[in-house]
């Protein structure tokens, strides 16, 4: 098996926001099928899931029939809309990781349909396989060995052989601690979870996934902080926590997600990790993003700004239910395809037109929510530059938190970012908390007070 080690990023791929735009990445990815991601064209990335049904041995025939029908419907739309290429993502449901044979059967089924489409139409496609990270719960022995780890590795290796082009994951190392932190808006604990515990796990996880990629030819793609930053985003949307806290978590999460690329991932970063724009700014690897087209899966305050630097444009996920226009995944694909046409038409007109469309995406959202503000391309480039100057993951996390809070305070004071009274109060409270963050990772770990944290699972 190949051996992969971590190479820490020391600089940024984009010094200014001028070339930081959708469809173009400094380090494009070419898949086995010849799809060039980040090479100048934005492609749809369609994700889908089952309608309410159990996944068991008894239902597997129905499950596979569902996936086949979904994939066929998508290919039909792709042909009708003359898309230049697309990516399909399968996120395995927990039973499909606990029973790899089920997840791999789904992977093969969808890969077969995509292969038939490619052969018939000469249009490249790619299949992203994202195993559900099952390393949670009372049965987990350890993050890096034992049944749960072995099953994930089995799914990744098996998927590469079963036709998956891109390997991704939404890993959960540190999440049990972050879940507590997010409920209390405890900045110190959140930073520790995201930049001490999560990177410790990701380094092990991603060097292993990258080795599988090297051995099989599949592309190790990326790892979103969905369980961290999207949890915060959803809780903020429900008015459970302040939006400014969710915005800070998003940027600090970039430190965590960057580790995947430092350990061999090459992009495209997975769709629901909005912090992926920071990963692109630092590494130049392409990124999948989801915005207004993901309204079928969850609310977000970043529906337009999320598209500014997208190389793949995604819907997050949609259940296979029947709509007036057809199955929901087909409908969702159509929406993605039209958005991509617009992105690519702007690109074809030249850099000025692309930047103009990008800036409209940014300006239409950014001033309304701090979570949108931190996705502005100019803000991303600025904060990313600050983050990589810090030495070590924890120091990067502290820098990310402080720089983000400073940016939000500046934008709010300048009247560019609207925050209500409660949010402004929390911005002050979080700024004070940022000033008091522990000086280093050892102190942060020593100060960790979490019932959920089991140091043994991290070899600590």
């Amino acid at each position, binding site marked *: 098996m190949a051996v992969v080690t971590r190479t820490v990023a020391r600089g940024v791929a984009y010094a200014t926001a001028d070339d930081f735009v959708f469809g173009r990445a400094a380090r494009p990815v070419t898949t086995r099928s010849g799809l060039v991601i980040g090479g100048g064209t934005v492609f749809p990335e369609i994700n889908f*899931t*089952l*309608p*309410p*049904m*159990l*996944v068991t041995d008894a239902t597997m025939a129905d499950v596979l029939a569902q996936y086949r029908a979904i994939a066929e419907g998508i290919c039909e739309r792709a042909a009708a809309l003359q898309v230049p290429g697309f990516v399909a993502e399968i996120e395995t*449901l*927990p*039973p499909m990781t606990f029973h790899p044979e089920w997840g791999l059967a789904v992977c093969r089924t969808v890969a077969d349909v995509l292969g038939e489409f490619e052969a018939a139409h000469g249009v490249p496609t790619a299949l992203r396989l994202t195993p559900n990270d*099952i390393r*949670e*719960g*009372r*049965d987990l022995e350890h993050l890096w060995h034992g049944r749960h780890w072995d099953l994930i590795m089995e799914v990744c290796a098996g998927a590469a052989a079963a036709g998956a082009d891109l390997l991704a994951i939404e890993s959960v190392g540190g999440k049990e601690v972050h*879940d507590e932190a*997010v*409920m*209390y*808006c405890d900045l110190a604990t959140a930073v520790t979870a995201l930049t001490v515990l999560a990177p410790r796990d990701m380094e092990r996880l991603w060097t292993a996934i990258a080795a599988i990629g090297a051995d099989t030819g599949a592309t190790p793609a990326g790892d979103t902080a969905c369980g961290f930053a999207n*949890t915060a985003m959803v*809780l903020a949307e*429900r*008015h*459970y*926590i*302040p939006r400014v806290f969710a915005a800070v978590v998003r940027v600090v999460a970039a430190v965590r997600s960057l580790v995947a690329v430092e350990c061999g991932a090459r992009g495209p970063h997975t769709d629901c990790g909005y912090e992926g724009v920071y990963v692109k700014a630092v590494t130049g690897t392409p990124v999948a993003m989801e915005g207004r087209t993901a309204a079928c899966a969850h609310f977000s305050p970043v529906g337009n700004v999320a598209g500014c630097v997208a190389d793949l444009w995604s819907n997050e996920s949609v*259940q296979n239910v029947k709509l007036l226009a057809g199955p929901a995944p087909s409908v969702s694909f159509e929406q993605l395809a039209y958005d991509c046409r617009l992105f690519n038409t702007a690109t074809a007109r030249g850099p000025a037109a692309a930047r103009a469309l990008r800036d409209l995406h940014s300006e239409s959202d950014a001033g309304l929510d701090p979570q949108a503000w931190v996705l502005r391309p100019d803000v991303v480039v600025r904060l990313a530059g600050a983050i990589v100057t810090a030495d070590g993951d924890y120091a990067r996390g502290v820098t990310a938190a402080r720089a983000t809070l400073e940016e939000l305070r500046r934008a709010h004071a300048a009247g560019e970012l609207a925050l209500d009274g*409660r949010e402004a109060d*929390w911005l002050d409270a979080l700024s004070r908390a940022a000033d008091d963050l522990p000086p280093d990772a050892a102190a942060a770990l020593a100060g960790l007070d979490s019932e959920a944290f089991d140091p043994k699972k991290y070899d600590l």
Partner: protein
Amino acid sequence: MTTVESLCEAVQKGKTKDVLALIEAGLDEGVAPEELLNEGLLKGMGLLGVRFKNNEVFVPEVLLAARALNKGTELLKPKLIEAGVEAKGKAVIGTVLGDLHDIGKNLVKMMLEGSGFEVVDLGVDVSDQRFVEAVVAEAPDVLCLSALLTTTMGQQKTVVAAVEAAGLRDKVKILVGGAPVTPNFCAEIGADGYAPDAASAAELATAMLER
């Protein structure tokens, strides 16, 4: 302001030290433990719950208040037992088999405790059998089942059926919740109630006690 009113305020502000000091002061003044619980701790938590429902405070403020409430209840407990005061009701809660998402479940637990319930938390990924065992062992008034995924919500039906098969269906009210769960689904699987959020779940559980 009386000691009980100050206690009510201190809970809402999540000031644990003040809560403990005010309980001691109240007991010294001869205030009945039940009054300190109901008019101080639980009233304060109830008022904060209303403010939370009206989007006037965030969860961290409610959690700090819940922490103060729990510490205060702990301090009062021996006096309450002495006085023969019982919890308003008992709830057993958990996420169903295959579902590891527990933030919603934890919020419901917090709101139930804030409403005066004793809560037994079974955690995540709980099998139908463990839920049945807990109903037998704990004899709760309410059983709360949480599911976040479309592929795990079916387990709520399995649990309802298991409780029925064990001959316990008339002993406990079953509440269901979670992002994909709907009132129709609740009715379809034979559960007793559905709540769209944590505050509503506590209100519904309280209402169930009166039925």
